[in-house]
């Protein structure tokens, strides 16, 4: 753990330097453009200063993004519509609901696939095919259709999260529920254990490591789903709406801060699962 602090810090440091350099490079054309039109001449230092402080840069400098995040998290009341924390919360609630539904669906499907040969043979290819459908393309339709049957608000977004998060759970859980070897299953047979006993006492606990790995992927997918789901709900609120509004008005700084906020949210959600994983597996004697 401690061993990686220095390497991680140096990599992050390197990335920051690259970021600043890229900001100069990407924003310079606009700076020159402006300068030519107003007839100024740019020295290196004014160029750099300009590229790091444009209002709508192609690539905002890290400190610009940092300032924006600070302004929209710490300096705003969390109930304000201009607070990123408020928007994160909106996204988070859809993410969590979708994640719970996706995990549930995924586990149910996995149990079906493991226990029912018919399902095993027929469903799996379609589960894979379902993921090749571009969700962003049908997300608006899902929302409209659900609207038509009277479902709106959190649930449609959560359904899109569910759609993205159930897949890794199915794949992981099928693997996990099948991870007990033949001998362990035979053992259960020798004790004349029922199907449900075999499930609760063998298959489920054996699948735990797989479950947690899939949950991590599923959580990240769920967040993507919530963000995607926010784009066509009318850009009302949430990190996705911020991204979109930022994009609509060319506010790159706002886009980047929403993006980083989303990444931080994803990292902390995945991190929380990681902690639960460690605690659970430790208590189960599997870590």
């Amino acid at each position: 753990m401690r061993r990686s602090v220095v390497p991680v810090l140096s990599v992050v440091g390197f990335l920051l330097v690259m970021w600043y350099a890229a900001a100069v490079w990407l924003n310079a054309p606009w700076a020159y453009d402006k300068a030519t039109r107003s007839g100024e001449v740019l020295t290196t230092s004014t160029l750099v200063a300009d590229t790091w402080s444009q209002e709508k840069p192609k690539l905002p400098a890290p400190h610009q993004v940092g300032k924006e995040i600070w302004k929209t998290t710490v300096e705003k009341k969390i109930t304000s519509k201009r607070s990123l924390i408020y928007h994160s919360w909106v996204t988070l609630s859809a993410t969590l609901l979708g994640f719970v539904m996706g995990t549930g669906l995924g586990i149910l499907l996995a149990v079906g696939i493991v226990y029912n040969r018919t399902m095993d043979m027929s469903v799996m290819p379609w589960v894979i095919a379902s993921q090749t459908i571009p969700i962003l393309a049908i997300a608006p339709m899902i929302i409209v259709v659900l609207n038509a049957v009277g479902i709106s608000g959190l649930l449609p977004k959560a359904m899109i999260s569910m759609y993205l998060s159930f897949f890794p759970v199915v794949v992981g859980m099928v693997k996990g529920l099948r991870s007990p070897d033949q001998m362990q299953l035979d053992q259960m047979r020798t004790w004349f254990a029922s199907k449900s006993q075999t499930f609760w006492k063998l298959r489920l606990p054996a699948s735990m490591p797989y479950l947690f790995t899939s949950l991590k992927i599923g959580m990240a997918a769920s967040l993507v789903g919530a963000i995607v789901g926010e784009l066509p709900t009318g850009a009302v609120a949430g990190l996705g709406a911020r991204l979109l509004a930022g994009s609509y008005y060319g506010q790159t700084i706002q886009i980047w801060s929403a993006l980083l906020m989303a990444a931080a949210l994803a990292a902390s959600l995945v991190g929380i699962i990681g902690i639960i994983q460690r605690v659970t597996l430790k208590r189960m004697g599997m870590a």
Partner: protein
Amino acid sequence: ADDVTLQLKWVTQAQFAGYYVALDKGFYEEEGLNVTIKPGGPDIAPTQVLAGGGADVTVDWMPSALSAREKGLPMVNIAQPFKSSGMMLTCRKDAGVASTDDFKGKTLGVWFFGNEFPFLSWMSKLGISTDGGDDGVTVLKQGFNVDPLLQKQAACVSTMTYNEYWQVIDAGLTPDDLQVFKYEDQGVATLEDGLYVLEDKLSDPAFEDKMVRFVRASMKGWKYAEANSDEAAEIVLDNDASGAQTEMHQKRMMGEVAKLTAGSNGALDPADYERTVASLLSGGSDPVISKAPEGAWTHQITDKALN
């Protein structure tokens, strides 16, 4: 109170100020209405929402509504708060565009999603092909912002007088750097931002009555917004859940929008309608609508609402 759901064509901004003002000032309430305003977005097709029953009435552009009508979705214009079109093509002079003759060989940014129709009929009127090449223009599906113009990826982009044009200005280009073509001036303007409902619902007297009250209150809102432009912008800001709009931009937008609504009392002018239809029918090889629609508008509501 009766429930009414209004689906907007785009995100919450001063373009829809009249409705927010009516809501905020209690005009709807006075009419005994409980109105829900659903913001739109880039992927929301208001027509689809209407078809799905997600809204009672929607704000849409007429080309898109007429096209939907031909697809079998009987949308009817019941009111037209916007008198004139705010659409224009904004070009960089340094890209070599000074007049419509300079378009050939250039790349032009166009909004799709049902908003491309006026552009296509304009081009066909100019006799310019839209499939690229030296004799035609290369069309690019423009995203939500004016980046292609700023990044010089396109010589011109679509803008609204009240919105994107000012984003270009804010970005640092001056009006002198730009050459704009207003659709109104080019004679290809189509009706924007009207109120549409499904045809069969109009025969229900209860619904009709609701709409009468709704249009009456909405127009009251619009006229209030025109008169009190800054206050209207503030009201819009209060209703923007994304918290992304800025006061300066919305006040300016309200000022521009007021110019577009100025000539309308809410009732559709049949002459404007005919002009729009004619323009769309002339859409070259692939016209938006193939024959003149019937019953696509009515004064049934405005007659009662405004008298």
